[in-house]
């Protein structure tokens, strides 16, 4: 049966598929092709594993580095200063309210009273601030010494290592001499902290004086003004905080070790991401995560109805001609580079949203009129646009996969077209639609360029007390911070490692989202069968 066929075949195929006689002994062509394909598949897996390993290698040192930095922060006494400083900073927010009230007041008497009150607020804080500033300067000096010691010590170790590995005696002597020059005495933390410890009683006393003076000034505030009422309402909490700080000062211990547990907490639940600071760098993850999550939610809320309804229409109602237009057009969106979309976001969408928000008949909308044209909503709109092709194609596939028999059965029962779509086809394809949404979410979370250009880059947790209008605030994101800062930090520094930690978390989130998408697909699939 095989002999007549072989003569008609092209020679190449003959060589590959058929004639074993001419093959190299021990090498089956079919097996070679198979293993080539297998190698391609496993290369993908290996690359993925390598990426994970690389991320972990660069990022995992972050925890010990950050632990050391936080330990220095404590031992040098910066933490002690912050205990008093954090609540005192709120005084400025209260003073700001008073100034605003003063500017809004028409009655000259009220104006004068408010101005007096603001002066009283400022003089109240002065003694405490003076002491605190002196303590801060001292603590910062200690920290500077500690950082210098650490830098020199690391470079000394590098030089010594280089000296140990070289054979040339002249080079070796030079390196050793450099290492010798880099030797300085370690910082005497316990000695340098003493002035701070001695003066903390004084600082606590000043804090108590401050609360007393503030209460007096608050009592003299004129009534019947929304802003001064706000000040008065915030007063008890502020005073309680300052007093707690005063007691905390006394129990604070410079030698308490920073546990690894608290370092992990400081990263994953920290609310401050502050870098390149004169005082202290903090790597808190929450502001970035909230930014990313809020933007992703906005994008999915916009993209889901659009892409799913478009998929239903294309799959069930559209004529062949329409299908030929709709599908390629939606899929073409994917070809637009994200940096181009970013520029559209800055130049077009931002101004459009801002312009619309100023229309007088839309002022009932929470957050209108908006102030920032670069905000989370703008970024969310653009990301929704980017996610639509993925979600549309996958949803459409899911609807396509609904067995013909279901539709026929529904038709046979006399259901209308709409009834069939909503009662039969969509429920049957729901697993595919859900996993399409999840994969869209994965795309949105990982997008960088658009959010970097358009989200407004404010590293703070959005103010959720603003209600739904919160979406018009700017934010920073996990991907954006990596893109913005990674190019500029020195390799191996704590900042570098912190960015890699962010990368690890981002990677984990993407894996999780994709895993969920698969799980959803599989779970509903079994029901269908």
């Amino acid at each position, binding site marked *: 049966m095989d002999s007549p066929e072989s003569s008609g075949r092209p020679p190449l195929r003959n060589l590959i598929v058929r004639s074993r006689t001419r093959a190299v002994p021990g090498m089956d062509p079919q097996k070679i092709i198979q293993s080539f394909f297998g190698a391609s598949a496993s290369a993908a897996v290996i690359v993925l594993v390598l990426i994970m390993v690389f991320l972990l290698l660069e990022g995992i040192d972050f925890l010990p580095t950050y632990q050391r930095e936080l330990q220095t922060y404590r031992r040098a006494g910066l933490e002690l200063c912050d205990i008093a400083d954090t609540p005192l900073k709120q005084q400025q927010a209260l003073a700001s309210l008073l100034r605003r009230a003063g500017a*809004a007041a028409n009655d000259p008497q009220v104006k004068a009273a408010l101005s007096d009150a603001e002066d009283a607020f400022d003089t109240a804080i002065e003694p405490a601030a003076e002491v605190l500033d002196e303590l801060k300067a001292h603590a910062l000096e200690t920290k500077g010494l500690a*950082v210098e010691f650490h830098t*020199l010590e690391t*470079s000394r170790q590098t030089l010594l290592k280089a000296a140990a590995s070289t054979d040339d005696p002249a080079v070796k002597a030079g390196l050793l001499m450099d290492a010798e020059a880099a030797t300085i005495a370690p910082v005497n933390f316990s000695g340098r902290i003493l002035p701070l410890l001695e003066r903390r009683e004084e600082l606590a006393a000043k804090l108590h004086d401050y609360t007393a003076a503030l209460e007096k000034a608050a009592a003299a505030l004129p009534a019947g003004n929304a802003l001064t009422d706000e000040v008065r309402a915030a007063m008890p909490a502020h005073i309680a905080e300052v007093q707690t700080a005063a007691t905390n000062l006394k129990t604070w211990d410079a030698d308490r070790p920073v546990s690894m547990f608290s370092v992990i907490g400081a990263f994953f639940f920290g609310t401050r991401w502050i870098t390149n600071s004169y005082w202290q760098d903090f790597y808190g993850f929450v502001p970035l995560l909230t930014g990313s999550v809020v933007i992703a939610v906005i994008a999915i809320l916009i993209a889901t109805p659009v892409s799913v309804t478009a998929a239903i229409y294309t799959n069930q109602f559209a004529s062949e001609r329409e299908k030929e237009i709709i599908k390629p057009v939606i899929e073409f969106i994917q070809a637009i580079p994200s940096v181009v979309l970013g520029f559209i976001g800055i130049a077009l969408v931002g101004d459009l949203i801002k312009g619309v928000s100023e229309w007088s008949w839309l002022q009932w909308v929470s957050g209108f009129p908006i102030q920032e044209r670069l905000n989370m909503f703008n970024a969310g709109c653009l990301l929704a646009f980017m996610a639509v092709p993925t979600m549309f194609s996958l949803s459409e596939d899911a609807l396509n996969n609904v067995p013909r028999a279901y539709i026929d059965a529904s038709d046979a029962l006399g259901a209308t077209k709409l009834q069939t779509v909503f009662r039969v086809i969509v429920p049957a394809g729901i697993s595919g639609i859900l996993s399409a949404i999840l994969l869209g979410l994965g795309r949105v979370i990982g997008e960088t360029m658009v959010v970097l250009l358009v989200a407004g880059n*404010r590293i703070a947790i959005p103010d959720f007390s603003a209600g739904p209008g919160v979406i018009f605030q700017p934010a920073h994101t996990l991907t954006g911070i990596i893109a913005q800062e990674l190019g500029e930090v020195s390799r191996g520094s704590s900042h570098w490692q912190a960015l890699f930690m962010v990368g690890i978390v981002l990677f984990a989130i993407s894996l999780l989202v994709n895993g969920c998408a698969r799980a959803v697909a599989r779970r509903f699939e079994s029901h269908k069968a």
Partner: protein
Amino acid sequence: MKPALTVLCIALSAALSSQAQTTLRIRGSDTLGAKLVPSLAEAFKKQGGKASFDIAAEGSTTAFTNLAAGTAEIGMSSRKIKPDERTLCRSKSIDIHEIDIAWDMITVVVNKSNPVTDLKKKHVMQIFAGDIRDWSELGGAPGPISVYTRNTSSGTYRDFMFMAMKGREYGHYTQKMAGNEQIVSEVAANVNGIGYIGYAYVGSKGIKVVPVGGEIPNPAAVKSYSLSRPTFLYTNGEPAGILKEFIDFCLSPAGDAIISRAGFVPLSQVR
């Protein structure tokens, strides 16, 4: 065979060495790298300098990371090198050499339609540190202040913290923009915006300069302006060859003219 090989080797090494000599990779400050250094490079080439330039400006910190990694011949910086960056370079056996190139004046700008005409130094500190949140506190029309700053890698970011904010932290609500251009466009688009930019950008549309403590940036009196600062080029070791030619050109009268035109103050005119 042998002569052919020799010719090939010579050609190759000539190509390589000419490549190494003529391409100057310049990395660092956005303030310097956006307008000033590219126009200096352009003019240098025009007057017969045999070099090609590869310039990327993403913040002063990148000047030192690139010098340390050996991926740049010249680093541009709008601030002085930090001790830990010096150590980093020393550990990579890079001998950092500093050259003053021009003076810059950081300028505080607000939206053109903002009625505020003068800010005290203390107010500027309080605005950027987040103490003052509303324009009505300063006699302007009520509205929350939007503060635009450079991003954390920028030399200007750090210099401003030191010169105008007494080392205080920026407020949480500040927005970190990629460069001067972006700050200009956001302040121009936002009535309640405030930001700081290099003097080179003060002519941009939609913004106006606010005097800080009565001082207006003026090229004729750079040193007395409290937000002025020298800017630097850094090289590995004493510049030599084409590198020296380029730097000499920057400091020559022809260079001075370009520096003035780009909105900086040349060294010869610093008073």
